[in-house]
């Protein structure tokens, strides 16, 4: 296997480069997935049947907490990659751990938000609008949940094997995923919540 010493570890082999490019292309598909959900959301936004509208159910506090937590986690995973490039295993693990804790916090607030919706009678079945709202948020939440498990797997692998060509590559790809979820959240925050509350 040819290892290119001039590049950061995660780009070190041809295989690693292919993994990263492949993941970028996957993110292209993910953009389209979320774009379709947004399309659907905009279509159903005002189709509320006999249910409530967005303005009636959205609350700024949990949404703001979720946004800031996720933005911060996006920052910390960036720091983890920076630490990884400095070959500081321990710092990498710390930043990764902070990211995961923040991710879990985000998820808890989102679950709280869903329970709140349930209590005020907003469910998947209420109307076209609530159905697509919860589907879109749920898809993002499912991505975050998957990301948490993935992050734990990577944490364990770095701990076990150190920063190798493979773990560095996986961590970098994981950081791409996590940043991407943050981007999608920004769009949800702006075009679902803020637009709805405006």
């Amino acid at each position, binding site marked *: 296997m040819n290892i290119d010493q001039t590049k950061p570890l995660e780009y070190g082999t041809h295989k690693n480069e292919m993994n990263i490019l492949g993941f970028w292309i996957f993110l*292209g598909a993910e953009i389209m997935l979320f774009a379709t959900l947004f399309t659907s959301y*905009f279509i159903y936004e005002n189709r509320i049947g006999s249910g409530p509208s967005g303005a009636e159910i959205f609350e700024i506090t949990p949404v703001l907490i979720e946004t800031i937590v996720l933005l911060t986690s996006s920052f910390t995973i960036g720091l983890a990659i920076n630490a990884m490039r400095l070959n*500081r295993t321990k710092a990498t693990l710390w930043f990764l751990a902070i990211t995961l804790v923040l991710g879990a916090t985000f998820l808890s607030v989102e679950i709280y938000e869903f329970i709140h919706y349930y209590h005020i009678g907003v469910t998947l079945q209420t109307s076209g609008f609530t159905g697509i709202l919860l589907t879109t948020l749920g898809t993002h939440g499912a991505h975050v949940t998957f990301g948490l498990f993935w992050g734990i797997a990577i944490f364990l692998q770095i701990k076990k094997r150190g920063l190798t060509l493979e773990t560095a590559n996986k961590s970098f790809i994981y950081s791409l995923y996590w*940043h991407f979820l943050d981007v999608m959240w920004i769009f949800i*925050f702006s*075009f679902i919540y803020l637009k709805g509350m405006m």
Partner: protein
Amino acid sequence: MKELFPIKQVNGFIFSLLLTVIALSVYFMDMSFKVGMTILLITAFIQAIVQFVLFMHAGESEDKRTIFTTLYYSALIALVTIFGSLLTMVWDMM
């Protein structure tokens, strides 16, 4: 310790918080729908660019042309899908 917090990323983080605050103005201040949407569109897309370029290092590898083409292509098709569907199903529905 200092090298663990590179200035580029710290600035990026502060900038993204700032963008969030600007976006929040549409909630806390009274403004027309048009102005509000313009603010949201601008802040959201700048946020996305900050993340993609600053944090995700989209431009650093030798595949950056492929990566940016993917992003542009998906953005274009996403916009066509969103606005085409809105036109067909909502705006131009009799």
